[in-house]
Every structure is written in structure tokens, then in C-alpha cells.
């Protein structure tokens, strides 16, 4: 589904990604782990089309289609979803209205009619129940005054609404207490199918106890330096990232 080949990217003069290769197939969950500053969030941002980064070499494709010339919204319309590490507060735009606009714009881009208001309300009700979100919450301004946990839950709620092909969860576990973590992970697991794929970006192994990956990759200094199964996450948890650093510098 997602195919990344020899991806190099920089911001200003600073090269952050130095040749990433990654293949994600439908039905798979991949975890990308690594120390701070390794380039994890940059990779997520670039897949989503953030124009602040410059892709200097390599390619990203989704189901064989090159994404590199597409705007962020066009990638979203093709099924790319990024759960932000720091969801943005947008005062004056309610969660419901935001979702309605997002869904209808996506439908429009895919040649579909707008979703009737009645259906929209029904879907919103179902998905908010899945994430245990209070209805009152939906009429509030998007992310404004939300706690860290509420913001992350709201991200997964949006993922549930948009039903993406490829979901990238960037540090979704940060700022979550154990109950919220369970709710979020449970939501993600319910959304998982053999038609979609999930890339979990995390610093810690904790989330991976709940969202169990098929593959774990270690990103260090702009490159994937190690790949393995879920046991690699445990090894990292035990040995820490210094082990990787030493191995690399040796």
C-alpha cells in the first residue's frame, strides 16, 4: 500500500531523512520507534504532505500512485490520515462542523454527493460512542481548551469518521493516562481491517502492548537501522536507545 524508497528530506540546510525505505501492506501494523530527534515526526509530516520540508530525493507512493506532487488535502482524499502529535486548536470552528466540512470535501473530491445531515449525525453518534466522547464535546471549538487526552481521543475520533486507508499515529500515546490509552487503542483496533494499514510512531513501547505491531522499525539519525517483529520493541524497552546508538557508532 505505502511504498517509500530512498527518501531524503531536509528543512532549510539541515538534512533530516537520509534514505528511508519502507513497505507497508494492507492489513499490517508497523511501528516506527527511535530516540528523540531521529526524524520520526518528520517522516510522518512528509507522508502527509507538509510543505515545510523539502524532499530532495526518493519517492513515496500509495497503491502505486506517486504522492510527491500532491497537496496535503489531495493525499487526505486518497486516504492518508495523520494523527498529530500536537493537534492544533482552532477557535470558532466546532468539532461537528469541522468534521462535516472535512467529510463532504473528501466525498466531493471522490465524486460523491454530500452526506445527508441525518446520516452525518448518525455516524457522528456511532463514532463518538466508540471513543467514549461526550456529545457536548462535539459542539465545542476544535481542540480549544481540550486536555492532552481529549485532543488525542479527538484525533482518533476523526480517524474513525474519515476511515482512512493509511493512518499514521504520531506519538498518539504521549499525554495519555492509562484509561485514555486503553480507549484510544481500543478505538484503533476496532478500525483496523485487512483493507487498511496503520503506522504507529512512538518513543515508548507502552502503546504497542495495546496496538500490537506486525513489524517494528528503528529510526535513528534519519535512517531505518533495524527492523524486526514485535519482540524488537521489547528489546528496545529493555536495552534503551543507547544500544542502537552504540551499534551504529561502532
Amino acid at each position: 500500500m505505502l511504498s517509500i524508497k530512498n527518501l531524503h528530506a531536509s528543512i532549510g540546510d539541515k538534512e533530516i531523512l537520509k534514505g528511508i525505505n519502507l513497505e507497508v501492506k494492507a492489513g499490517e501494523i508497523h511501528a516506527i520507534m527511535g530516540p528523540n530527534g531521529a526524524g520520526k515526526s518528520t517522516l510522518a509530516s512528509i507522508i502527509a504532505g507538509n510543505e515545510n520540508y523539502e524532499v530532495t530525493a526518493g519517492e513515496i507512493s500509495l497503491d502505486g500512485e506517486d504522492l510527491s506532487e500532491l497537496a496535503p488535502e489531495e493525499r487526505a482524499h486518497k486516504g492518508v490520515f495523520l494523527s498529530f502529535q500536537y493537534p492544533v486548536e482552532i477557535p470558532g470552528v466546532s468539532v461537528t462542523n469541522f468534521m462535516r466540512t472535512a467529510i463532504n470535501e473528501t466525498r466531493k473530491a471522490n465524486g460523491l454527493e454530500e452526506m445527508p445531515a441525518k446520516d452525518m449525525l448518525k455516524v457522528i453518534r456511532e463514532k463518538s460512542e466508540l471513543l467514549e466522547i461526550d456529545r457536548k464535546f462535539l459542539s465545542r471549538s476544535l481542540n480549544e481548551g481540550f486536555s492532552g487526552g481529549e485532543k488525542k481521543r479527538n484525533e482518533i475520533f476523526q480517524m474513525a469518521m474519515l476511515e482512512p486507508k493509511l493512518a499514521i499515529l504520531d506519538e498518539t500515546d504521549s499525554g495519555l493516562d492509562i484509561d485514555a490509552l486503553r480507549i484510544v487503542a481500543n478505538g484503533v483496533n476496532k478500525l483496523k481491517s485487512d483493507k487498511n494499514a496503520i503506522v504507529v510512531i512512538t518513543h515508548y513501547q507502552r502503546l504497542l502492548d495495546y496496538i500490537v505491531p506486525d513489524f517494528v522499525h528503528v529510526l535513528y539519525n534519519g535512517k531505518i537501522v533495524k527492523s524486526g517483529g514485535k519482540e524488537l520493541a521489547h528489546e528496545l524497552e529493555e536495552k534503551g536507545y543507547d544500544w542502537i546508538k552504540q551499534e551504529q557508532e561502532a
Partner: protein
Amino acid sequence: MELKEKLLSSFMAFEERIDVHSELHDVRTAAIKNFENKGFPTKKDEAWKYTSLNAILKNDFTVFPKEENAVEFNHVKKYFLHEVDTYKVVFIDGVFNSHLSSTTHDGIDICLMSSALNKPKYKMIIDTYFNQIASKDESLTSLNTAFANEGAYIHIPKSKVADKPIEIMYFSTGNEAALLVQPRNLVIVGENSHVQIIERHQSLTENPVLTNSVTEIFAQKRAIVDYYKIQNDTLEANLIDNTYVSQKQESHVSVHTFSFGGNLTRNNLNFYHFGERLTSTLNGITIIGEKQHVDHYTLVKHSTPNCESFQDYKGIYSDRSTGVFNGKVYVEKEAQKTNAFQKSNNILLSDKATINAKPQLEIFADDVKCSHGCTVGQLDETAMFYMQQRGIPKKEAKALLMYAFSNAVIESIKIPELKQRITKIIATKLGVKIGFDL
């Protein structure tokens, strides 16, 4: 001949047509003298530092337009509210048009300034209110006073609610190469009474127009006045709006100014307090581009204790447009327990757009709450990326952000049909078709 000279000689011609023995004659004569002494304001005047009238004054304006200019209703229908019935006071090139208007004398007076000024039965009211709160010192107000003859006259007596909103419309046909119009409105709202007014100036062609308008609003005890100004005129139209508000105790007066169009717009908005526990609200949304210029010059004079004033101005400037927000708040020594808040938030969408924001607070009382905040920023790039990531295209994301930015002011519109209309104008300005019912 320079415009000033032309106006001075026109005044003599104007006087010949009216009764020189009336008391109004003295008012007009004093006013024209003040204008003669002061002339048009220039950038040397502190109050006009950021707004120059020079280029506009070079037009050869007609001061007395022909009286027979006609306009078909179908041609101007779109400028009125449709979904709600309204009283209408309509002027074409400064002349009242009875065909398009819907006035009343049934318990409330919604009619013409010219009748009020000339008919004996209004004399007492005119003597009590006309030119009482308008400045006798400011030259453009004086110029208007000197020629004051036509406009809307609204008198809501004690304990009456105007059953429909009132639309005051000034159309200019462009039948003159360049036209100067000077409407004069008088609004008197009695004790416990309530009125909603919408004022709009609209040019129907591309010929230059300069409107120098004066509106006096008197709100008696516990009166409620909601006044909305829609400024969405052509790029050849210029507007100087001078509005003076006098408030008595426990009254609520709000003036909303929506500035989306025109070449040059200057809003002089002045509030004076004559009683306790009253509230003044001044809200504005400005969305302009090209070389448009909008200058909001506000004054709230707190002279009595326990009063509140709220100012909230949002501005979005693109291309080479320029905006000014100059907000003066005076709190006199007697005005203890004043709450005065002022906000001016601005977004610049282009490197060449400018906003000059200047809050001026002069506080002489010691037990007050006053605050002001001015912000100037760009659209939040991270918010844009976030919205785009969820599938909202750039243009719509931008529009949604800007709409959200102005939302607090839009929400304060109390006439639902007007709120819809303003929302629609904003969507059109932003070039999008998404529904904005947030």
C-alpha cells in the same frame, strides 16, 4: 474651482432655497463658517494621520443632483433583506424615493428628515435633538450640518418596540459624473423602547461618489438600539460616516460596522454617556483587498459611573489594502466602576497590506477596569496544514479560519436574516461556497 470653494458658493445657492429666518439658518451658518475655517482634514491632523482625502477631493463633484433619477425595484432588490419584512427609507442620489420606501407614522415615526425639519409638528423635537450631539467642531460634520436637509428620521416614542427592522438605503445612480451626497439621519428612541436599524450606501455604477453622512442617535432610559452598517460598495465609492450616540441610564446601544467594500471608508463613531449602568457596544468586521482603505476611528467617553463599553474589531487585509483602528476611550474622574474593553485583531494576508492599530486610553478615575488588546498576525500555517490534512482544500481551510476569526462579531448580530446575509457576503468575499453555520 476647488471643492471647498465650490461648496462655499453652493451654500449660498442652497440658502436661497430655504427659509433664512428659521432657527436652523443659524445652525447652518455657524456650521459652514466652521467648515470654511477648518477646511477638509489633511494628514497633518492627528486624527487623519493615516487617511488622505486628497485624491478623492480632486473629483469635480456635483453637489445638487437632478431630482428625477429613478431606479427600478428589481434592479436594487438584492441589496434589501428578503426573508423578513422591514420598514424602508430609500434615497436615490440623496433624494427620497417614495416608490421604494415603506415608511410609517403609526405610533412610531419612520420617515424623512426633510419633513421633520420643515413641518411645525416636529419643531419641538428638532429643537431638542437636531445637531445636539453631533460635533460642532469637526469640519466634515459641520459641512454635513450646513447642507443638512435629507435623510432618515426615526422617532420611537416611550415604551414602543419597532415591530420590524428598518432599512435605510442610499443608492447613487451614477447619472452624475461624480456625486457628493450628505445624508443626515436622526434616530430618537424613547424610554424602554427598542429598534433595529440597518444602513447601507450603495453605488449602482462605477462613477465616483463621496458620501459624507452624519447620524445622531439618542437612546433614552432603558432604550435598546441595534444599529448595523453594511459597507460593501463599489471600488469608486467613498464614505465618511460620522455617527454620534447619546445614551441615558441603563440603555444599550450597539453599532456593528461591516466594511467589505468601497474605495475609502472612514468611520467616525462617537459614544457619549449621560446616565449610569448603560452599555455601549462597538463591533466591526473589515475584510478588504486591492487598494481599499478602511479607517475606524472610535471614541467612547465614559462620564458617568457604573457603565460598560465593549469594542471588538476584526480585520482581514489582503493585496495592498490598508486598515486603521484608532480607538479612544476616555474615562472621566466621575466615571468610577467603569468597565471598558477594547480589542482589535488583525490578519494580514499579503506583505503589502498594512494595518495601523492605535489604542488610546485616557483614564482619570481610579476604580475602573479597562483593557485593550491589538494583535496583528498572519494565518496560522500549522492550522492550515492540520485542516488540509483532514481533506479540507487550502482555499476552504483559509476561508474557514477567517470566518472563525470573525465569528464572535458575526454571532453578535441579532437579526437572523442579516446574520445569514453577512455570512453570505463574507463567503463571497473569500471566494468559497461552504456553509458556515458553525
